[in-house]
């Protein structure tokens, strides 16, 4: 309500304040998972693989929000809720990957094996992140190119840009809270037979 109406898109552009943070954070969470997976595979830090498993459902939810908000935004802007466009399809793949990682980990009865396979698959799947990022440059897409880049002046007016940064920070805060809760549950589940956890509870 505080930002002005967009000249071309009208008020529907306000979806940007939820769509952009959700898609930015869904990709950032996957990068965090890839780093944690590498730490687990190299140094065998158990906590990092707990973090990977905790982030996966939160990543799936943020990717779902990015896809659904983009679809709803597409109706008044593009005249369609879905297009088989490179950016949209690569984001859909990210969503399916998150679900696949959760299913893969839960399908094993042996936790050690599950952790190892999960970490390897997360690292293999990380190839999708640069594809999502560059999809609007490499292919001709319905989805617009990035409005904010490191090298160029932002294509979005500052009146709209500052609230966008605010919403990204706010959304990141909410997601961090959810990741902390998810990690707590994961640690309680995995360490339930250890003596320290009984003292903690």
């Amino acid at each position, binding site marked *: *309500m505080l930002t002005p*109406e967009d000249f071309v*898109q*009208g*008020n*529907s552009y*306000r*979806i940007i304040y*939820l*769509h952009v943070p*959700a898609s930015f954070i869904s990709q950032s969470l996957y990068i965090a998972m890839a780093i944690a997976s590498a730490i687990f595979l190299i140094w065998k830090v158990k906590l990092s693989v707990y973090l990977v498993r905790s982030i996966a*459902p*939160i990543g799936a*939810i943020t990717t*779902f*929000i990015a896809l*659904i*908000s983009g679809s*709803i*935004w597409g*109706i*008044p802007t593009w005249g369609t809720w879905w297009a088989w466009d490179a950016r949209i399809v690569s984001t859909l793949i990210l969503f399916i990957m998150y679900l696949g990682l959760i299913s893969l980990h839960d399908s094993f009865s042996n936790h050690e094996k599950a952790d190892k396979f999960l970490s390897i698959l997360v690292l293999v799947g990380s190839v999708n992140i640069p594809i999502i990022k560059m999809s609007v440059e490499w292919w001709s897409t319905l989805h617009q190119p990035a409005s904010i880049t490191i090298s160029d002046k932002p294509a979005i007016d500052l009146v709209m840009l500052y609230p966008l940064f605010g919403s990204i920070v706010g959304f990141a805060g*909410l997601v961090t*809270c*959810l990741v902390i*809760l*998810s990690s*707590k*549950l994961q640690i*309680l*589940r995995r360490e*339930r037979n250890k003596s320290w*956890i*009984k003292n903690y*509870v």
Partner: protein
Amino acid sequence: MAEAFLMQSQNGQNHGIFVWSVVVIVFLCILATFIFYKINIKKISKKLK
């Protein structure tokens, strides 16, 4: 109030339904996830006690 809900744009289209539906979906997703984890943490903590 009605203006904020309808969000009529200069081209005459009402975009409120799109914007508010996204707000509701995001709110419900985050709330449901928060409640899910809170309940499960409580359940497992009780079991461990």
